[in-house]
């Protein structure tokens, strides 16, 4: 087993353990912390997949943006001083069985499919930021603009919905 494999297994175990902590934890703040470490683990996986730009975006947007947003949601909706931050579960056993079934099916599909792997996929690492910027301004210009307008509209809409007394 090479060093690369060891690092992959470390990151994978880290990601899955944090995600499991997020699912299992009864305290919602602990869930958020689990999610935080899970996002960092996924960023590490991106680095192993030679997606350096995406790893940075993952840390900036998910950890710096979305997770903070979720934490604001927690803090604004649970009265921190009085109520405990517990979150209940329902139908736990059937849900675990169903999800385990789905995972087994996915696992079988992944193992039995013969993937068309490009042989020279193990090529050396090439920085991706420049290429992604180029692609966003040429081939993907229209989707890029549309998604910018979507984000703007969603944020304005969110601010409008969340205002008191509307």
């Amino acid at each position, binding site marked *: 087993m090479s060093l*690369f*494999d060891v690092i*992959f*297994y470390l990151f*994978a175990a880290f*990601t*899955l353990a944090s*995600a499991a902590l*997020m*699912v299992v934890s009864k305290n*919602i703040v602990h869930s*958020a912390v689990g*999610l935080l470490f*899970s996002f960092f683990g*996924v960023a590490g*996986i991106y680095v192993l*997949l*030679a*997606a350096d*730009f*995406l790893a940075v*975006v993952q840390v900036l*947007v*998910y950890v710096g*943006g*979305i997770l903070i*947003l*979720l934490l*604001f*949601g927690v803090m*604004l*909706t649970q009265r921190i001083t009085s109520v405990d931050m517990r*979150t*209940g*579960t*329902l*139908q736990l056993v059937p*849900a675990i069985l169903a*999800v*385990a079934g789905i*995972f087994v099916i*996915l*696992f079988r599909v*992944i193992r039995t499919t013969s*993937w068309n*792997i*490009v042989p020279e996929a193990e090529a050396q690492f090439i920085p*991706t930021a420049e290429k*992604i910027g180029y692609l*966003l301004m040429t081939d993907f210009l229209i*989707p890029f603009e549309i*998604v910018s307008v*979507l*984000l703007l509209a*969603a*944020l304005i*809409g*969110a601010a409008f*919905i*969340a205002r008191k007394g509307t």
Partner: protein
Amino acid sequence: MTVGLEHYLVLSAALFSLGLLAVITKKNAVTVLMGIELILNAANINFVAFARFIDTDLDGQIFAIFVIVTAAASAAVALAIVLNLYERLHSINLEEADSLAG
């Protein structure tokens, strides 16, 4: 066995399963949102892994960026909805948001 495409896909499937478990078992609306983010991350790992191993240009990574943007948009809107829910029901327990149930 060296780490290849299948390892990433299995990791992604496991992450997806955990996210799905959070979505269908949690009562708290914010925790359900966290599960959705986990599922989107799993999908992103798939995109990037396929971009690395099968279609070796960067289309998959561009897709992943678009997924991240839509995830940010959905998190913002969902948080606004959760705040409204809290204002009306004084709770974000999804089982109590049943005014539309017959």
